[in-house]
């Protein structure tokens, strides 16, 4: 027996297993780089975590549901536990969803967790994207990760749509019919696409099994790949951080993965799962038993898609009925095609390309790891707020009947409001948001130069009342002044300044103009300079 073997025998079991794995997988070099990796702390960094955890919850509960769900459009007569549906003809998909809800113990709970988690998944991705957008976290080197996240959001929408269509209930079937109408409106190939998707005419017998394959295999498979890539890039780039004392563009300040982040993030998974389980215990979602099975000749009022599809519903409801027969005897159904084939992708693409647009305008080739405070990027913040308002207007439009009923308004008036607001509201919101940002910048400047309003009123010997201003701490002074204020690109200097190689005059001109719009006059309040600060400090001190 050699001494080496003796030593190995004495080592604890855990270490021996780790040694074994390292000899085959090289886990030690992986752990060396990552086990004590630093993660910065901020509440908004948890939004992406909520998305990640709800995705895991969806997969866990989804696998359970596949054990009982029958993805078939074969018609059966119902003779199950739910009395009001006795003898009703329905598809096996609908019948098996009733069985999951009424005959499988805990089946209803898992179904509701699955649906609630899906809503929360989409909502948290949405808010997470907004956080990344407004803080400029999408800038180099994270543009590709922004695209991955964007794709996850879009695929998540379609996975949600195919998912809630599976029970083949009256509400979701109406949504599928809507989709068929939209596909038929695609010029030239619409009827072919529809026949190929439905395996013939609507609804046929193929669409539920096909949606099932897309919902449980194709879409989540792609999403899982994107998700892993998204997380690998987060690790590789290291997390961004908000500006503050000790935080620079070349460091990352926070706490190590092992143990703090492991415990916080791991614990947070259980918190999210717990909250969703309690939601599912208390609040019914998608009660398909109350809706009835789908029949193409039946419908209920107040039919709405799940919220993340609501903006497409708003687009289609607000669009005027433009339908023309063009020479040659072909029909252009622009009333459906423009909202769903043109505007729907456009709304999403605007957001997808923004990082590339901004980096083109700035010509900035540096890495950015310190986040922007939204007020310090007024044009970007304005664009983001305008986009959200646009989205909300369409969401409102998608529920025009609900608004009309609950607020006792004319549906025609609501629809006309949405039509006008579609153009007017984003512009207004942009202007207002930008002004708010400038106001906040002005306040930051005041605070830096004159200190914080203490709320203490002091009476001077001659009777004058003044408010005491407390000087800011070194930390606050640094935080409020560390940001860079960009200057617009001068059309003359544009070729050398940022090493731009493009010499096409028109695009250069456009770029200079955009740059002026982003960073030119009226887009920022000059931040306090050390000189101004020193002058005020030495002049009359602070009172």
């Amino acid at each position, binding site marked *: 027996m050699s001494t080496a073997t003796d030593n190995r025998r004495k080592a604890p079991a855990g270490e021996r297993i780790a040694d074994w794995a390292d000899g085959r997988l090289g886990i030690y070099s992986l752990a060396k780089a990552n086990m004590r990796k630093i993660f910065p702390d901020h509440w908004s960094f948890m939004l992406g975590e909520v998305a990640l955890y709800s995705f895991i919850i969806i997969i866990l509960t989804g696998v359970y549901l596949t054990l009982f769900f029958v993805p078939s459009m074969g018609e059966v007569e119902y003779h199950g536990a739910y009395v009001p549906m006795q003898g009703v003809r329905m598809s096996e998909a609908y019948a098996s969803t009733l069985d999951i809800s009424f005959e499988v113990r805990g089946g209803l709970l898992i179904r509701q967790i699955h649906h609630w988690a899906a809503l929360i998944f989409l909502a948290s991705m949405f808010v997470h994207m907004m956080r990344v957008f407004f803080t400029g976290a999408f800038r180099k080197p994270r543009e590709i990760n922004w695209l991955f996240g964007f794709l996850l959001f879009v695929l998540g929408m379609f996975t949600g749509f195919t998912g809630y269509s599976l029970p083949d209930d009256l509400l979701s079937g109406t949504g599928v019919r809507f989709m068929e109408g939209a596909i038929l409106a695609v010029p030239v190939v619409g009827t072919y696409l529809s026949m190929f998707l439905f395996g013939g005419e609507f609804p046929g017998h193929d669409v539920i099994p096909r949606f099932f394959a897309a919902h449980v295999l194709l879409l989540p498979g792609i999403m899982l790949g994107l998700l892993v890539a998204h997380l690998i890039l987060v690790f590789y780039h290291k997390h961004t951080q908000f500006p503050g004392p000790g935080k620079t563009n070349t460091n990352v300040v926070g706490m190590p993965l092992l143990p703090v982040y492991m415990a916080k993030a791991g614990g947070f998974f259980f*918190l999210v799962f717990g909250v969703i389980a309690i939601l599912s215990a208390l609040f019914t979602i998608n009660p398909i038993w109350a809706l009835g099975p789908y029949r193409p000749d039946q419908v209920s009022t107040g039919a709405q898609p799940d919220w993340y599809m609501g903006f497409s519903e708003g687009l289609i409801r607000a669009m005027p009925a433009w339908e023309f027969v063009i020479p040659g005897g072909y029909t252009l159904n622009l009333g459906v095609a423009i909202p769903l084939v043109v505007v729907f992708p456009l709304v999403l693409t605007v957001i997808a390309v923004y990082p590339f647009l901004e980096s083109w305008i700035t010509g900035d080739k540096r890495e950015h790891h310190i986040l922007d405070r939204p007020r310090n990027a007024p044009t970007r913040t304005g664009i983001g707020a305008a986009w959200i308002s646009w989205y909300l207007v369409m969401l409102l439009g998608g529920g025009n009947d609900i608004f009309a009923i609950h607020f006792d308004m004319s549906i025609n008036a609501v629809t006309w409001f949405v039509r006008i607001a579609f153009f007017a509201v984003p512009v207004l919101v942009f202007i207002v948001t930008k002004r708010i940002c400038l106001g906040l910048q002005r306040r930051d400047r005041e605070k830096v130069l004159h200190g914080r309003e203490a709320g203490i009123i002091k009476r001077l010997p001659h009777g004058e009342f003044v408010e005491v201003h407390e000087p800011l701490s070194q930390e606050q002074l640094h935080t409020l002044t560390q940001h860079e204020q960009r200057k617009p690109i001068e059309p003359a200097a544009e070729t050398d300044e940022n090493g731009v190689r493009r010499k096409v005059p028109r695009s250069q001109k456009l770029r200079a103009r955009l740059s002026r719009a982003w960073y030119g006059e009226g887009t920022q309040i000059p931040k306090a300079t050390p000189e101004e600060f020193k002058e005020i400090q030495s002049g009359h001190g602070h009172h």
Partner: protein
Amino acid sequence: MSQTGSNKDVSHASLPGEPAAHGSAVDTTDNPFADPGLPPHQHRIQDIDERAAKRSERTIALLFVVSMLATVGFIASYVVLPIDKLVYIWPFGHVSALNFALGLTLGVALFCIGAGAVHWARTLMSDVEVADERHPIEATPEVRSKVMEDFRQGAAESGFGRRKLIRNTMFGAMAMVPLSGVVLLRDLGPLPGDKLRHTLWGKGKLLVNQNTNQPLRPEDIPVGSLTFAKPEGLEDDAHDFQTEIAKAALMIVRLQPEDIKDKQELEWSHDGIVAYSRICTHVGCPVTLYEQNTHHVLCPCHQSTFDLSDGARVIFGPAGHALPQLRIGVNQDGYLEALGDFSEPVGPSFWERG
């Protein structure tokens, strides 16, 4: 959670040592806004008071124990509660007892694990912030030139640029091979043909009431009523029922003949009875809401509104054209019958519709 705030009144002698990187002063004479560096670490009460740390420990352990109890509760509920039992719980109303109990116990079991772990991390694990260096992502110029050189060498050794015949035929083969996959998609469905132009309606087909399954007579339809009809021979349990009713669904209303403004509508009606396709010409929802005073029908999905007294033309909403009318008459037995199929395709419009 618990006390994680700072404790400034505690004497410095009892504090653990500070990491050197923290709180280093900077010279601010040149730049009053200079970065002062990481602020000094603020101790939590658990860092300095062992009793507080013990309290945290007990809280965390309690949370984990509650989680265990909740899991026991979950299993017990699963075994004990019948699946069809409803209970009244304020303010949720009558809810499934099993779903309520399972969801709450599972939720508590999970939530307490999370709360325990987070509390542990926040109160007992080190909360000293440390800084890690970032390294530029771009490779150094040396690495870059080495990679480029390797690539050039590899490319040269393959002869890829030199042997154009190989390269071009390979591109051709690679471009063509996915075509097989595209071709395989052909059998996803039939070609459209004229499928969207025909429904089950045809000359002599009786109009059958969808509720009673009986053929309709004119006297069955009073003025102001709304009747849904299907073509004779289409049974609810037919294999293609859904697909056929998706096109053939019909609504029948009776107007006073003098109220009918459209000339063709009057010609295609029988004694004031008009039959229209129920499938909305917008995106295909069934039009179901009938207002008898105005003879308007409204699609509940997107609010397209049609005037049934005027050729079902669109008076509001996103639908692009009128609902198709079915020409009807009465056969020798006194039943309503179709005098042919719809003269135009029903439902949403499409490219070839014309």
